[in-house]
């Protein structure tokens, strides 16, 4: 199971990659393995406002349907249209080609992205998945 060190994570198994004020979001390798083959991904609409910890889409696998939560507050600026034709990218490359959506997040006083303070580091996330068995 891969947990790239440079990403942020949530207990709901999303990852966040931040560049400036743009946050790219997907689900983790662990989540993809737990779900099994992903067959459908419902993503928020570009322009929509998302709120950290609130559901904003669905990830459907052969055996289950799970809510997709936004890890950050902001406005959706782009979604991964490739997933419409090939949702299996989520299983094959969860951190790259299987990314799901991008959000423009607000800036803090220093001009950096204002991220929720409860995002997990790679080490913390790895610990969480281990204790989940």
């Amino acid at each position, binding site marked *: 199971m891969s947990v790239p060190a440079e990403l942020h994570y949530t207990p709901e198994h999303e990852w966040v990659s931040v560049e400036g004020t743009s946050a790219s979001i997907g689900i983790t390798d662990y989540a993809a393995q737990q779900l099994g083959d992903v067959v*459908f991904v419902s993503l928020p609409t570009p322009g929509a406002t998302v709120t950290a910890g609130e559901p904003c889409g669905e990830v459907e696998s*052969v055996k289950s349907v799970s809510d997709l939560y936004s890890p950050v507050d902001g406005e959706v600026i782009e979604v991964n249209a490739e997933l419409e034709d090939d949702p299996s990218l989520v299983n094959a490359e969860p951190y790259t080609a299987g990314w799901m959506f991008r959000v423009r997040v607000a800036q803090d006083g220093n001009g950096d992205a204002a991220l929720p303070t409860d995002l997990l580091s790679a080490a913390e996330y790895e610990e969480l998945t281990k204790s989940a068995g």
Partner: protein
Amino acid sequence: MTSFAGWQMPLRYGSETAEHLAVRRAAGLFDLSHMGEIAVTGPDAGAALDYALTGQPSAVPPGRARYMMICAEDGGVLDDLVVYRQGKQEFLVIANASNTATVSGALADRAAGYDAAVVDATLDYALIAVQGPAAAGILAPLVRLDAVGPEFPQLPELGAMKYYAGASGAVAGREAWVARTGYTGEDGFELYCRPQDAEHVWTVLAAEGAGAGLVPAGLAARDTLRLEAGMPLYGNELGPDVTPFEAGLGRVVKFDKPGEFVGREALAARASAGPSRHLAGLTIASRRIARHGYPVLADGRTCGTVTSGAPSPALGVPIAMAYLDRPAASLAGAVLLVGIRGEAVPAHLTDLPFYSRRR
């Protein structure tokens, strides 16, 4: 891994879609040790089972198997079963894991008064299945079948074994009941061995079969395989609230067998009145899956409920089975929709099974 009826079961080993396709194209290796094995033996074993089940085990020749059901007095299905006749007085009844205790109890009750013993032997057996077009070729060099006396037709080799037949013998050198049965819609074998031999048998099969495309396959692939093959699953298409006739399986009820059997009166009434619901196949015009419990609408009105749904690798679209309140033929031309979490998705009636293997 997943918990199922008190067992820890492999849901998938890798990609369930890849496992499904391997079974269709080559072969899959399944651990089905959760299935219940109930031994019914004795001079009256056949007669007791004729009374207890919808089928007629006493008419099954030794070395053959039949698909049957056990019903309640009211005709409701308690379980669907495979019954092997292992000898003149020996039968092995295979029950679903979640129903093993119920079936074993019902068989014991119904066999009272007959000279027959009913023993839940589930923990005496591991069950390993090899399913797919390559199964016979993979197993042939690893299986030895016993010659079994004059009343059994002797089985010269594995490839000559008929579908729904079985024989005692050995797999990878370990004692087993070897049967040409399965739940995938493919040719294949089910190997009932001793639990202490299971790891050895699995390891040898996995290694020897790998070159022919054999891969370990989990419960998720088993479910999509049986759904494509139009086979019912207890708890989804079968349960105490339906008779075999609703599921389109009235043929398993043998009204012409001699003697009484449990549920005869209710089943005869249902046979003459016609089923109260109709099991139908649906293909879904979306990537979304119509899952167990989702409503089916015809021309805007609820007409049924989905019982099972999954993506179909064979058809390339999601498929489902559903109980409808009228026969599929009467819905020709109707606009069918499935309610998938608030979205009405078009669906099309499709003949069952969705997939049939080439023979």
